[in-house]
């Protein structure tokens, strides 16, 4: 330790005098182990049909070759507007895009209860299962007991974008404040994924919170309203917006308006149906994209809302109010979701995050691997056809440059503390390991977990696509009083910068999304034990609501 302290001093002095030179040297090292991140898009190399489980036996879904009606259950959710537009209403008809262009009819059936929808899918009454990706993770292993009912996912319909949210009592300003509190939400639903994901990212153990479960999000909101001992609820629009308006002392903690790439809505087809009728699957995917194009026309859109209102038994203005809950994902965005292996919020990463969260929550022991569910062959074909070349990925959040002090004026939604083992006095996160004499050893990493750590950060930052993210570097206080504070601050700043650079390089985040700050030794990790230096050497990732920039 003494030796290391001495070394520290020597290098500190070096740092102070020839800071610039050292920085340049570091920059050169930073690039070395990461040669793959130069391209923005990296496509999967595997072929879906090699990873998807083979279908066995004769197909077991209901099908009338004369009528050709695909039964497509949907729930009450704005994201289905494109398919309603494409289908010319709910009932199977000959004026739909599906019939006119692809020669089959679609019967959109309102089945709001996910368990009923699942049973209808498993029994072959319907060919399609609606759901969020987190629901698919829960359903998959049971459905895959029969290779014919294994779900195949070909298309993402939308991102929840304000449709799901967390409402809390006013005293709760940040996810960190939920520690030790009581939360109510619908079990085994997107709500559970949303809150569990946040808690885990904030470093709060799931057992450090009292969970109350309801069977629907609506009941969760009602429970929060009626029971003052509950500190927060996870629910849906419109409840998450009406509660803070009507009930004093409550506020929205966060919604998917900020975490706008967290909850993905998809549909899955039965494996035997997909095997027998690939052309119909392609027609469904293409038709939904065409529905998105059709909604550009205001008359068609008004008509689609009318159909939606009729189908849901709701008023047109209520249906229109739901529009902001979701963001339809066009072909370009689907391409990113299914085929770009670098995308921090692609299918694979979203699936794995869900699997991890549900494993922590004790719901799923071992999730089905993503590549046994995801099938991007249709996306590949559509890209080859060039039918949706005009679709652009416009769902990119814009950021204006801002500063840490400005952003930090408000409480962050969530703060994720990551521990990166920096080599003493180095700000290089890819620092190689050193031998006893201090020489770098080639092809080693001082922190072998750095990629996994970055991945963890990237998934949170990616999900909170619209939010501003502050990266703050902290150092330990072992040299307090022995060296000037300035160089410590610089070091922690450089470390935060290094994390930002790595994230921007590897996952192609907008650099303006981040603000960095070096806190030096000013903020010990544990106030009760400020000398716990291992905890103190850290980087904190704080997510701030977009309004504050």
């Amino acid at each position: 330790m003494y030796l290391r302290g001495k070394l520290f001093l020597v290098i500190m002095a070096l740092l102070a005098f020839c800071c610039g030179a050292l920085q340049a040297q570091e920059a050169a090292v930073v690039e070395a182990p990461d040669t793959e991140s130069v391209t923005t898009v990296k496509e999967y190399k595997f072929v879906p049909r090699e990873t998807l489980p083979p279908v066995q036996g004769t197909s077991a879904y209901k099908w009338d070759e004369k009528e050709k009606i695909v039964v497509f259950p949907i729930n009450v959710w704005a994201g289905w507007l494109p398919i309603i537009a494409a289908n010319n209403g709910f009932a199977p008809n000959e004026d739909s895009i599906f019939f006119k262009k692809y020669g089959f009819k679609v019967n959109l059936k309102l089945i709001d209860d996910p368990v009923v929808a699942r049973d209808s899918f498993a029994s072959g009454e319907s060919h399609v299962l609606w759901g969020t990706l987190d629901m698919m993770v829960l359903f998959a292993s049971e459905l895959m007991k029969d290779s014919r009912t294994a779900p195949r996912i070909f298309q993402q319909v939308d991102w929840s974008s304000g449709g799901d949210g967390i409402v809390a009592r006013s005293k709760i300003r940040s996810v960190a404040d939920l520690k030790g509190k009581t939360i109510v939400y619908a079990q085994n639903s997107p709500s559970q994924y949303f809150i569990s994901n946040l808690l885990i990212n904030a470093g709060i153990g799931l057992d450090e919170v009292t969970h109350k479960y309801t069977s629907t999000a609506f009941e969760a909101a009602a429970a929060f309203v009626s029971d003052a001992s509950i500190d927060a609820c996870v629910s849906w629009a419109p409840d998450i917006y009406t509660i803070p308006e009507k009930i004093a002392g409550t506020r929205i903690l966060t919604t998917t308006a900020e975490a706008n790439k967290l909850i993905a809505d998809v549909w899955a087809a039965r494996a035997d149906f997909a095997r027998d009728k690939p052309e119909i699957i392609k027609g469904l995917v293409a038709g939904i994209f065409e529905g998105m194009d059709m909604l550009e026309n205001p008359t068609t859109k008004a008509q689609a809302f009318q159909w939606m209102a009729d189908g849901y038994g709701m008023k047109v203005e209520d249906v229109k109010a739901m529009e902001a809950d979701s963001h339809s994902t066009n072909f370009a965005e689907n391409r990113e979701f299914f085929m770009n292996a670098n995308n921090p919020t692609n299918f694979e990463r979203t699936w794995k995050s869900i699997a991890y969260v549900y494993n922590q929550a004790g719901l799923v022991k071992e999730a089905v691997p993503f590549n046994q569910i995801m099938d991007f062959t249709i996306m590949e074909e559509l890209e080859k056809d060039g039918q949706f070349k005009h679709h652009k990925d416009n769902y990119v959040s814009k950021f204006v440059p801002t500063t840490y002090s400005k952003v930090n004026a408000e409480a962050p939604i969530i703060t994720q503390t990551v521990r990166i083992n920096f080599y003493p006095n180095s700000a290089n996160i890819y620092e190689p390991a050193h031998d006893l004499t201090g020489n770098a050893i080639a092809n080693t990493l001082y922190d072998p977990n750095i990629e996994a750590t970055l991945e963890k950060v990237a998934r949170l930052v990616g999900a909170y696509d619209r939010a501003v993210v502050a990266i703050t570097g902290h150092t330990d206080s072992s040299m307090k009083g022995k060296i000037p504070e300035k160089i410590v601050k610089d070091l922690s700043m450089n470390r935060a910068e290094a994390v930002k650079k790595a994230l921007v390089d590897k996952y192609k985040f907008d650099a303006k999304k981040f603000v960095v700050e070096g806190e030096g030794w000013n903020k010990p990790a544990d106030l009760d034990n400020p000398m716990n230096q291992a905890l103190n050497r850290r980087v904190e990732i704080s997510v701030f609501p977009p309004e504050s920039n």
Partner: protein
Amino acid sequence: MKLTLHENFFGIRTGVKLVDQIILGVIPIFLIFLLWVFVTSGKTVTIILPEGTFEGFEKNPPPEGTLFREKVRLTIDNSTHELKDSANDSLLSYLLKDGEKFELGHIPARPFGKSVRLTMPPGRYIGREKLPPAKPDKAPAKPDSELLKTAPVSENVSESTPDLDTIPPNNDHQAEAASPSTEVAAASTVPAASTVSPLLKFKYRYEIVETRLISPSMLPSPGEVYRSLPSLWSDRSLPKNILYSFLRVGAGFVVAFLIVFPMALLMGTFSKFKALIAPLMLFGGYLPIPALVPLFMILFGTNELQKVMFLAFGFAIYLLPLFVKYLDEVDNVYLQTGYTLGANKFQILNNILLPIALPNMFDAMRLGFGIGWGYIILAEMVDMGSFGVGTLILTSQRRGPREDIYLVLIAIVIMAFITDKIWDKVGQQLFPYRSQKR
């Protein structure tokens, strides 16, 4: 001629002997069970494969007759996997070892280094195949079942199942890029047959679940349900859940009784009071109870009180009309006689109405107690973390295992039977004159 009444076993008064009662009563249950077995039995096939290493049996091969209840990984060394397009544009999957060809049917396989990894469906390891004494069989081994030969081989046969989870996310997907074609090319260079040491083979029998009448993702087989019992019993603590639900049902029943019984008596005694309550009673019977769950939450919170009160409400709207009805049914002659003898309202109630109506009311309570088990899922929809069989069913529906749903149903049926026996015994104690009435 006096009809002999026998001790009733299923709670029904009949003139049938006890033994016959049991036999007759079991027949329909047994038939339902047979039907269940019938619709959830698929065809089984036996496949012959070269000896390999079963996961969990790395040192010695599994003993003969070992039953694998879950999918099991089988690694066959020095072998290659081949996919061939068949005549009808579908893919056939083969395993090649020592020049012999083994048809794999739909068993997922993927190359793993120099070996092939198969994911065997749940089934039974029958044992090593008897070796023919003279020369080893060089003809391609075929599964010996008719079914596998005739079964249409899927068009979408895939040959590998990379287990990505073992690879850190950022290692990307080079691992999957290993193409089967290179492996196959390597295979063709292997000498055609190594007749020196005959190839050890084994038989494996498994069920093709896709041939069941009802898909396993809808209805598990009785065997699967039975095997799920230990985990439901201990891991998901079934007894504790049953106890919680039973206490809730019991408490709800007591609350309902305490409210409904005096109310019924008042209604039976004072016709004005009856006129006051009767419309409410009528409407109550028509209410779709599930829609009232949120209302009870607002009134009684989200804890035990809400569940008990919800169940109490369910009991009350069932019991009240019956109680009133039985009080009404008391023959007017008795009442007239009572009044003639100068009895007041209380004496009429205490000495005439109650003694006559009580046994019927008790029967209503006995039948009504089952209602609570019907409503338990609704009651436990809120605050599902706090145990109960309703919660067990709701969560099993969402994330499985589906087997547990049916186990819980069976458990509830058993509970219902036991409680009904208790009701019966209590009834005999309370109203001994009833069992001799007919």
